[in-house]
């Protein structure tokens, strides 16, 4: 298929529709607003629903409603908006409702700013809402993946009856790159649990409440089984020049692009450096990192945050080799030269 030069945020919307998503509930926020705007333009034209909600909270619960009805549905926002949605996200996970949430992360805490950030890692991956749940979290690093991983998010959400998050940043969302769109999905998994507005609904209940401790524990254990399955089957990552690497750079999203260039420049200077890019932030490629830790001399994690994913890398490395960290915050994006400088300093130390 021909390629189209398109913004990542718009690629999300087209990918979602190609995946069979027919409902979008949103609320404007920079730098995610183009997603709602593109949804407002395309969803009604393809027989779908677009609704601008009165709040982030309302939009996540409209999603809860549409997901209860078994249709593929989504919302998109940016960090402060995601914070507001966290209550609903916990309910969605508790009620096992598949849906897709896009987070175009911006600088925080508080109002912060609108520049690119990865400060939502903990909020999304570790559970910003209450209770013991997990979100399948995909981290695209280009416009093509904004489409592809949004489509994948719908598949995984349905497969696991769980919300899935596409977590990107302002750069990935705002950037234009060529995208080749796949054919639309035409067959969808059966959802015998979903409400359809028909007689069989009398046997169906969407809920997250269970006042009996044993009952709720059973439910939570059931969720953990699903999560364990996802950890076995859904880990996705990309490696670049790791075969002979002495130092592995680890970064996701826009940072992985910087690190890709860093690897090239470092190799040009004779440093044996490779890159591991987690594509799924949860489930996290812990096992692969543990394997690599047996044969490399160090890892360096780079994030647009104070060091959040680095905790998971350190858990996987388990003290076998040093794990260095370099983070920029507040929307500052380091240059390749800067990362290379830090890397060389670390190696020399």
């Amino acid at each position, binding site marked *: *298929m021909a390629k189209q030069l398109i913004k990542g945020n718009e690629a999300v919307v087209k990918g979602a529709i190609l995946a069979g998503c027919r409902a979008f509930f949103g609320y404007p926020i920079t730098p995610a607003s183009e997603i709602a705007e593109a949804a407002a333009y395309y969803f009604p034209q393809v027989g779908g629903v677009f609704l601008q909600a009165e709040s982030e909270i309302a939009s996540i619960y409209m999603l809860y*409603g549409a997901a209860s009805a078994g249709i593929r549905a989504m919302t998109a926002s940016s960090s402060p908006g995601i914070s507001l949605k966290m209550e609903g996200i916990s309910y969605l996970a508790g009620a096992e409702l598949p849906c897709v949430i896009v987070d175009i992360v911006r600088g925080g805490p508080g109002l912060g700013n609108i520049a690119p950030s990865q400060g939502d890692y903990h909020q999304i991956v570790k559970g910003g809402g209450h209770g013991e749940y997990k979100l399948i979290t995909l981290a695209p690093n280009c416009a093509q993946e904004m489409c592809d991983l949004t489509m994948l998010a719908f598949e995984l959400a349905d497969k696991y009856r769980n919300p899935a998050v596409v977590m990107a940043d302002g750069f990935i969302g705002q950037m234009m790159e060529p995208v080749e769109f796949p054919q639309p999905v035409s067959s969808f998994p059966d959802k015998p649990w979903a409400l359809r507005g028909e007689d069989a609904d009398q046997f169906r209940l969407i809920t997250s409440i269970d006042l009996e401790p044993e009952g709720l524990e059973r439910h939570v254990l059931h969720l953990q089984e699903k999560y364990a399955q996802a950890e076995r089957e859904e880990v996705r990552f990309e490696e670049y020049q790791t075969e002979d690497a002495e130092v592995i750079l680890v970064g996701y999203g826009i940072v992985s692009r910087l690190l890709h260039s860093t690897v090239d420049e470092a190799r040009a200077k004779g440093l044996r450096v490779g890159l591991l890019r987690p594509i799924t932030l949860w489930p996290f490629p812990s096992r692969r990192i543990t394997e690599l830790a047996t044969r490399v001399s160090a890892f360096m994690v780079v994030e647009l945050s104070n060091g959040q994913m680095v905790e998971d890398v350190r858990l996987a490395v388990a003290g076998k080799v040093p794990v260095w960290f370099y983070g920029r915050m507040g929307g500052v994006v380091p*240059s390749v030269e800067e990362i290379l400088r830090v890397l060389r300093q670390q190696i020399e130390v």
Partner: protein
Amino acid sequence: MAEMVLRKSPSFYDVYERKPGAIKYQTHYCPGCGHGILHKLIAEAMDELGIRDRTILISPVGCSVFAYYYFRCGNVQVAHGRAPAVATGIKRALPHSIVISYQGDGDLAAIGGNEILHAANRGERITVFFVNNAIYGMTGGQMAPTTLVGQKTTTTPFGRRAEMEGPPLRVAELLASLESPVYIERVALTTPKNIARARKAVRKALSVQMQDLGFSLVEVLSACPSGWKMTPVDSIRWIDEVMTRYFPLGVFRDRTAEAKPMPLPKISYDLDSLLEKLEIPSGEAEGVIASPVPHPRYANPRIKIAGFGGQGILLLGQALAEAGMTAGYRVSWLPSYGPEMRGGTANCHVILSDSRIGSPLVSRPSVLIAMNRPSLDRFEPEVESGGLILYDSSLIDRPVTRRDVEVLAIPATSMADELGNTRAANMVILGSYVAYTGVVEREHLTHILPKVIKRKQLIDLNERAIARGYEYALMHRTAAST
């Protein structure tokens, strides 16, 4: 013919299997609680209207959190206050269903105030049953937004004070001030006469939804003997004698006669012409028109373009990226975004590359296109040694000071002005850059122009601007670049 037996409605489950414990034949409500009465009126209306099989009932947070134990229909249990938003999502997904949002006063009028206000204002085709018992029952008798002034609760132990906690919220009146709602009535579950009115109101509210007329809400004054610490009989007297003085019964909105049905569109999965509707180019990839072979010093450019908002900076970058894609390059275009776009400066980063693009961020540009003085001042030092600076010399009143870069000064705005539109200066520069470096061919620009210039009548002007820039650059190309 009137029903000859009044018995448990078939819209209730025979046995409350979802209710934990041994007692599955009795509700969980306290003796004398109004919820059960309202449940019966709703179930009876579902029977009589023949909608049980397509009804979806939303259980809120509050004493009726377990309404799903009882109603034999689709059931959804939701978070505190969010039922109208969930109802919206369900109804939009399943327009044929009958969606009931069942809410208490803390749920609807306090934590869910925003959701109910906007669902009502959107005219959602849902039916809300709002139980007003002036107290938080489930959590043990705290103050509700509808608690009366002077009423003692566990969080107003000395009585509610209007000047500190505010007066009670009159939800029916408040929502009736909106344009959209079709039917709003306040009833009381007290005397046989009032219960008969409530019964009618419940049926009417649901029939409004069946006819797709719009939003309907029944506010139900309902007894909470446990919370009020009264006997059930005293409780219904208190409603009639005290509550109704502040919450008068009656119809606050009834547009059922004049409202027109507004059925929601059904969700469609029709794949016919889906790609067209999504404006996705179909068919095979376009062949590369011609592979440009720029002078090596101009190959794989990392370009920064900067100027005022309104100069078409982002568009210039987009045109370059489009042309690059058509010429077979990997490309990326990254804008500065947000408030700075509105008024102040604008800049974007464009990369055309033969190989995979790592960082799309151009921190050391090989090409700087500066369209105003602040941009030149700010970005001139960033340009890599041996790079190229193009600037609009009709707006920038100083020469480039760097000696280690190549410079092309283009009076772009003046040239565009001569063509009749200063806003075409960006295309003059684009033409110049392409002519000067050969990074793409002229025909690539012609090819992509209709994609980036949305207003067809402007294509010709932009074409001419590109041509002017092109000629200008060819005339000023130095020996080094040929």
